[in-house]
């Protein structure tokens, strides 16, 4: 108990320091240096972090427990075992879905970002008839409840042979991810001064060269942002995966964990499911950590006098 309290204080102190470090950039930041408010901030941060992290910690704890102690209700495992992780990587029920997840998510992200970059560029730069319709249509699709198209999609996929294949999941993922990516990227493209492109054209660039050598490098933060959004959307999807697959041919991890079998028929595979949940969280964490450095504001600073 003492250990937990100490940990919480450390988290709080860290949070407070971050706020103060951010102070000079935000005019209001210095409020946090007042003792009363500072304490309030720390407590608030601790509460939010604890609330958000507790389920994750619990899952982590479960994944490290042995079958015998899995239901003991303790956060700190009595003994730590890697058995659940060994099990999921040897049983064959997890590795193939993991490959499916990585493959399908990466392919979808790549296609979505490339198409969205061109579409968003056109939307940001050109005035063409039906632009408003296109944008609102894209938004409507993004807001459409996926569950309402699952039934028809199931039938169509059975007929067309897309059922239980990678393209069978990539297509519906693209449908929902593209509008998001287009909207995000269009917002980034609009921020880039039009003069830069005209300067590139005068300097001898074709429109495509101007896009590739000037606009795209400047829109990289936006490209990474939308890539992350799309990737996480595909990675986390359960609905399409559970409905449009029947074997490990295309089933992704979220759906596959529901089909886990334990070593004996009389035990729930709770430990393995927890281990799988932890493993699938890792790529997301890595992705955000890697890309957050690229998502820096102010990349266009110095382009034009503003």
């Amino acid at each position, binding site marked *: 108990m003492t250990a937990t309290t100490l940990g919480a204080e450390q988290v709080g102190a860290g949070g407070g320091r971050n706020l103060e470090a951010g102070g000079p950039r935000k005019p209001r930041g210095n409020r946090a240096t007042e003792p009363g408010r500072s304490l309030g901030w720390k407590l608030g941060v601790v509460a939010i972090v604890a609330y958000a992290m507790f389920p994750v910690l619990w899952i982590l704890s479960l994944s490290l427990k042995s079958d015998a102690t899995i239901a003991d209700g303790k956060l700190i495992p009595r003994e730590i075992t890697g058995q659940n992780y060994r099990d999921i990587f040897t049983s064959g029920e997890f590795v193939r879905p993991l490959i499916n997840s990585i493959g399908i998510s990466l392919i979808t992200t790549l296609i979505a970002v490339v198409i969205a970059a061109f579409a968003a560029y056109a939307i940001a730069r050109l005035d063409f008839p039906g632009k408003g319709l296109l944008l609102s249509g894209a938004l409507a699709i993004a807001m459409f409840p996926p569950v309402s198209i699952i039934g028809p999609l199931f039938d169509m996929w059975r007929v067309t042979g897309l059922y239980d294949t990678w393209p069978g999941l990539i297509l519906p993922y693209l449908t929902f991810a593209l509008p998001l990516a287009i909207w995000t990227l269009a917002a980034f493209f609009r921020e880039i001064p039009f003069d830069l492109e005209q300067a590139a054209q005068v300097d*001898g660039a*074709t429109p495509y060269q101007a896009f590739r050598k000037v606009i795209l490098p400047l829109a990289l933060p936006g490209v990474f942002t939308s890539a992350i959004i799309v990737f996480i959307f595909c990675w986390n999807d359960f609905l399409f995966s559970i409905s449009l697959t029947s074997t490990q041919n295309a089933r992704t991890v979220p759906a596959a964990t529901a089909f886990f079998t334990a070593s004996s028929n009389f035990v729930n595979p709770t430990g393995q499911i927890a281990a799988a949940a932890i493993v699938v969280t890792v790529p997301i964490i890595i992705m955000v950590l890697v890309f957050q450095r690229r998502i820096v504001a102010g990349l266009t600073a110095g382009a034009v006098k503003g």
Partner: protein
Amino acid sequence: MSSITMRGITKRYADGTEAVSNVDMDIADGEFVILVGPSGCGKSTLLRMIVGLEDISEGEMKIGDEVVNDRAPKDRDLAMVFQNYALYPHLSVRENMAFPLRLAKVPDAEVTSRVEEAAKVLELTENLDRKPANLSGGQRQRVAMGRAIVRDPKAFLFDEPLSNLDANLRVQMRTEIARIQKKYGTTTVYVTHDQTEAMTLADRVAVLRKGVVQQVDSPRNLYNSPANLFVAGFIGSPSMNLVPGRLSGSRLELPFGTMDLPDEVAQRLAGGSGGAQAGERQVIVGIRPEHFEDASLVGDTSHGMTFTNRVDSIEWLGSELYAYLPYTGAEAIAQQLGQLAGDLDMEQSSGDESQLVTRLDAASRVEEGKQAELWLDARRIHLFDPETGEALARPPVV
């Protein structure tokens, strides 16, 4: 290097408004031409039509001997410096300047030598590896110019390049631009709303108003012999005094006195466009502030008019003295002057009283609030038709 020829260049928008109307202009090889006019006069649009960023609705644009109307900007071989510099923020100064060369697939060794030479000319050598964000305004301006000169283009185009700099730097960069243009001898078209830039830099200045070219001439000719009221009011600071006048024969009646036009003016009037008209007629008389003088300081007052007027206020600047004289009677041309003030983005003097701005010798002893005897050089007055605004008798260039 190349000449630029425009024939009947017109820019018409979808709603029928014309931003640029029927411009004919010949810019010689190596010439420095400045397009000047108040905001919204179409000067930037015209420049963008030369470079190809705006479509040409009508007319023919030639660079050298080639018609370029339908050519993309990249195929016109022109270099442009944008008002906001438009540097590529993700590239170093070196790569910014090398950008057009890389696109043209110039070999690496030559790119390096050309960029370094341009950097030397522009004093950017120490900053070659920095990003634009870490440069001062003046340095960014130099990089933008560097990007233009490394290419050795057919012409340089400048779109208000100095308007984002503070006053000191502006003067400095103005000299810099003049130096570089002289050094390379490249045809240059330069847009500005600042008449000082226009007068100091240009070989010839084109004054635009509402998309129509009013006069294309050397700075000296524009100042001494404006073709119409607009050019007269636009060029010169403080601007030319415009007062109503009544002309009968060679007698000119002004609100503050009457004079006989000198023979030379009368002759020009007879030979000019308003020539044969006999009898009385209304005119607008333009008098530059420096063509007034304290009568006591003028030896020979024969070729001018001496008059007495109250002095409202004076500004003594050491080398010269500005005296402001109130007079009445400007209502006769209030409508024309109001329109002119609107075109020039200036405020029109309100009320019945108008003010003459006179520049006198610093030795003058005129005093505020008292009557003063002033002399006006009749040989240097400008006469304009109140209806058309055209100059009636243009003084010779001095």
